[in-house]
């Protein structure tokens, strides 16, 4: 008989201790004083995501839809526990955006120890000039890399995973995601666990399925004041053309210290 380690704790970082599933690397709980989690279940989601600028009491999300076709942001039934939130562009040749975020209510603080994590799937990897991004961003601007500040996993017109950062000050950059000693990651169409870790706020870690995909100290991060505070960003975007993109997010959780 073998024993499978199902759950382990990561080391405490100044009072924040968190537990993860050892099989999938998915974070399952934390002891952080600030916590947000959404599995996209329940009537609030199935009733439809409110439009940007018109948030609904008790519901954190809004959607930004650009395009006449139109693109969509909507809940779908999950095949496993929980629901899905899908962002989808259409093939119509036009500028399009399908984004999900907190209506510019910035709450997640990357200057205080914590992390944000998504279980997400590229249903349709971006084609043409389309982009898909999940991560953290500042107030809405059309196009994920046009945001004033961000920490993002981003696919740029193909399934090659990149990481992107901009702290609103002296630091910005992009990096092809790759494990230590490995090669660039060509993301397949399955669900994966994407984690942005600021357990050391001066050394942002990007992780996929429990493996770090940026070298230690490769992301310089020194936001000043409230520049380090963000909202979640899930987006499919294209400035023009017929490109396609569909992102499916099964869950997000984020926490940080006070």
């Amino acid at each position, binding site marked *: 008989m073998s024993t499978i380690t199902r759950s382990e704790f990561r080391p405490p970082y100044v009072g924040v201790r968190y537990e993860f599933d050892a099989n999938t690397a998915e974070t399952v709980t934390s002891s952080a004083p600030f916590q947000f989690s959404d599995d996209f279940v329940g009537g609030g989601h199935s009733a439809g995501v409110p439009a940007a600028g018109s948030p609904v009491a008790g519901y954190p999300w809004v959607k930004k839809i650009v395009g006449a076709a139109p693109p969509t942001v909507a809940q779908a039934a999950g095949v496993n526990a929980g629901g899905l939130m899908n962002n989808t562009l259409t093939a119509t040749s036009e500028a399009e955006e399908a984004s999900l975020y907190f209506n510019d209510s910035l709450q997640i603080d990357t200057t205080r120890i914590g992390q944000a994590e998504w279980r997400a799937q590229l249903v349709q990897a971006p084609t043409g000039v389309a982009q898909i991004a999940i991560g953290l961003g500042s107030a809405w601007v059309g196009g994920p890399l046009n945001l004033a500040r961000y920490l993002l996993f981003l696919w740029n017109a193909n399934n090659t995973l*990149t990481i992107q950062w901009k702290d609103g000050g002296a630091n*910005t950059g992009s990096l092809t995601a790759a494990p230590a000693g490995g090669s660039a990651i060509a993301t397949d169409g399955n669900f994966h666990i994407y984690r942005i870790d600021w357990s050391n706020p001066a050394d942002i870690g990007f992780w996929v399925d429990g493996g770090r995909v940026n070298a230690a100290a490769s992301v*310089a991060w020194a936001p000043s004041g409230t520049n380090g505070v963000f909202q979640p960003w899930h987006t499919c975007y294209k400035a023009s053309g017929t490109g396609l993109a569909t992102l499916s997010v099964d869950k997000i959780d984020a926490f940080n210290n006070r």
Partner: protein
Amino acid sequence: MSDTTGTDPVDAIGEAIAVVEAVAGAVTAPAPAAAPSLPALGDAIHVAGRSGVVFGACQRDGRIFVTLAPGDDWLPV
């Protein structure tokens, strides 16, 4: 009897201010330096004696760096 000839001192001051403002307005502010752009991922590049493609690019404190392979150092451009 008041003197109603010559230039009113108040008007003279106003005209002088107008001249100063006109001169100041004529001075063209220097255009801000264009922000350096980051090399795009995948672009061919020759940097620090090495040739390769851009695996990562970043800006730190106004300086541009690139890296050519996973885990490699950032090289100044």
